[in-house]
């Protein structure tokens, strides 16, 4: 069949857009590598441009970036531990517990949270969250100080990893909760009703029908949240008092790990050329880690849905691609036949 001009133009436009994203990504990677190279190959012990300022006291590029990489992952991890359960709780409440009208308002409010600029979160963190967490910081340090996490000289100013992570947790709430909500809502009605018909309570129904169905989707939502947390800059730069090093302490002023993005923002303006190149190198590492997180997310998703790489049809409600598939744990529902019947219904 001969393609009509409109078809060809639309194909060209669509293909061009897809190709452009690859070009942009490659260009960013290339820029990072080229600009980072001088610092990666430089001698950090003797080069006078590197022995002063932000890069002073590090023996090599890797000795500088290593602790920063750790700090980035560490702060994001704590934010995820605080934020993800709350986000999933919000999503479940909106999708399965809240009355329809309240669910609508709540969902709207959560999405609104995503529209708050990160500098505003940072200022909110400094002015509100820092003093708010001081008593908790002191209490944790006094009573649970034997745990390395809560050890050290408790902060007097509140510029702790704890404060930074709490603000970061709030910032990743919208992305995790709105994606999870969409996925929970896509749980086939028949699965839920089958579970209820078998005598399950509402919580058991959620555990048996909703959560297994949504598992891979929730994992990818969480990893998208992690991606958001890894790159967060201004709020962290404003709140956390940094010192570049590997430290698990979250209640101190003086021995907090530092994240790559915040370190970049804080030190870029006053740095010389080679220091800038070192900072861009740390950005390259962040780029690599973010890519890795994405790959891991996809790998988890593909592993949890064996033999089903096909695409999920969207029903128009979902603004984001859902990776959930209509798989129900047969054992949980009490019989392979039920599961088979349900699947047949929805394929």
């Amino acid at each position, binding site marked *: 069949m001969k393609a009509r001009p409109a078809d060809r133009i639309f194909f060209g436009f669509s293909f061009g857009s897809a190709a452009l994203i690859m070009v942009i990504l490659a260009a960013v990677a290339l820029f990072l590598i080229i600009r980072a190279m001088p610092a990666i190959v430089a001698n950090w012990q003797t080069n006078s441009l590197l022995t002063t300022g932000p890069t002073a006291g590090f023996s090599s590029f890797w000795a500088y970036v290593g602790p920063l990489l750790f700090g980035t992952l560490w702060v994001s991890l704590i934010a995820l531990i605080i934020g993800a359960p709350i986000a999933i709780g919000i999503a479940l409440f909106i999708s399965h517990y809240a009355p329809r009208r309240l669910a609508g308002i709540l969902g709207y409010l959560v999405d609104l949270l995503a529209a708050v600029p990160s500098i505003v979160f940072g200022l909110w963190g400094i002015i509100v969250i820092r003093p708010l967490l001081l008593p908790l910081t002191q209490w944790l340090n006094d009573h649970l100080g034997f745990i390395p996490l809560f050890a050290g000289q408790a902060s*007097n100013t509140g*510029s702790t990893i704890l404060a930074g992570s709490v603000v970061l947790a709030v910032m990743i709430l919208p992305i995790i909760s709105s994606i999870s909500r969409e996925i929970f809502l896509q749980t086939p009605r028949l699965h839920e009703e089958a579970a209820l018909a078998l005598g399950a309570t509402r919580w058991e129904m959620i555990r048996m029908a909703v959560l297994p169905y949504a598992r891979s989707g929730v994992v990818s939502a969480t990893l998208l949240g992690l991606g958001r947390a890894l790159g967060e800059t201004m709020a962290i730069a404003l709140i956390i008092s940094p010192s570049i090093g590997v430290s698990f302490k979250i209640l101190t002023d003086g*021995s907090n790990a530092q994240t790559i993005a915040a370190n970049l923002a*804080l030190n870029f303006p*006053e740095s010389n050329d080679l220091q800038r190149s070192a900072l861009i190198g740390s950005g390259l590492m962040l780029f690599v880690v973010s890519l890795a997180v994405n790959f891991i997310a996809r790998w988890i998703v593909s592993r949890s849905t064996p033999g089903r790489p096909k695409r999920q049809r969207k029903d128009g409600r979902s603004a984001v691609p859902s990776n959930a598939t209509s798989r129900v744990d047969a054992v949980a529902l009490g019989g392979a036949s039920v599961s088979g019947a349900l699947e047949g219904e929805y394929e």
Partner: protein
Amino acid sequence: MKFKNAAVVGAVALTAALALAGCSATSTPSASTTPTADAGVTYKVDPTLTGTLTAGGSSAQANAQTAWTAAFKAQATGVTINYDKSQGSGGGVTNWLAGSYDFAGTDSSLNPTQVTSAQTTCGAGGGLDIPAYLSGVAIIYNLAGVSNLKLSSATIASIFELKITTWNDPAIAADNAGVTLPATPITVVTRSDGSGTTANFTKYLKDTQPSIFTQANGTAWPVPGTSGQQGGAGVVNTVTAGAGTIGYADNSSIGSVTAAQVQVGTSKKFVAYSQTGATNAFEAAATAAPTGTGDLSETLDYSKITNTDSYPIPLLSYVVACTTFKDAAQAKLTKAYLSFILSDVGQKVASVNAGSAPLPTSILKEAVKSLALIK
């Protein structure tokens, strides 16, 4: 606010400065330090100037640049001046060397590498470092019940090196006879971002107390274990909000926080910051260290600040510009703007609106000669 030598200010500049003072948030400006008109450097802005100046760099002098820009534009309405403070000193100099800035603001004068590359950018004459902004590094603190703290340079160095950790330490008590000091732990608040304030302050610590302050001086705070905050405002906010906190900041941005009196030289005398104090300190300590003809790079010799009319920790920031511009119109415009900055009126506009200290007349007169080299 009052001008003592309103005659040289001119009606337009006066209006502009007044208008600026109205919306400025800086601490109690004082015009009492103005040099007398007859001995000073006057400059008349040509109202027919047109064009756009692109500049950027040091954020320390950003408030002053804003004040200068507004006052200059009030007289030469056809001129646009963009000063980008987000670049910082490092970015400012880099962009200037790349030829994208007409001038840059920087907290440290050009280093030898930059002097060499300036000759590529500007021709054989190279670039000119000219002091433009003078203030002081204030030692700010928040300690309940203590409002009149005095600190010797040795005590300051020990506190910021984290060798003294409680407020009732004998060293602090020795500086403050008769004051009851609480046993509150000291929280040292510093800058987490690279900063000219840090560079000036660590230089002071390093020069006056090399045996106590053993870390390298520079734009990044070198001692690990302090509470690092972003920007001068971050330090001021955290010191204000905390208990037993101490930090350092450009005096023009400290607002209502209490600042300590600092020991003068090796004497037993302590002085609080004043604009006159910073001007006198610069006059006493500045030693010319030119990198070329007309260059006004200065090294501050802190040991020369011995008189109680001087504040011991001055903060200095420069403007750098080419001697030879590629475009004669840009040269004329840059020269006009810098001449305005480095005149009595310009210095007063900054002192009233940005809280800076006026540069001494002697250096302004040097600057006139240097600016004459720009073509």
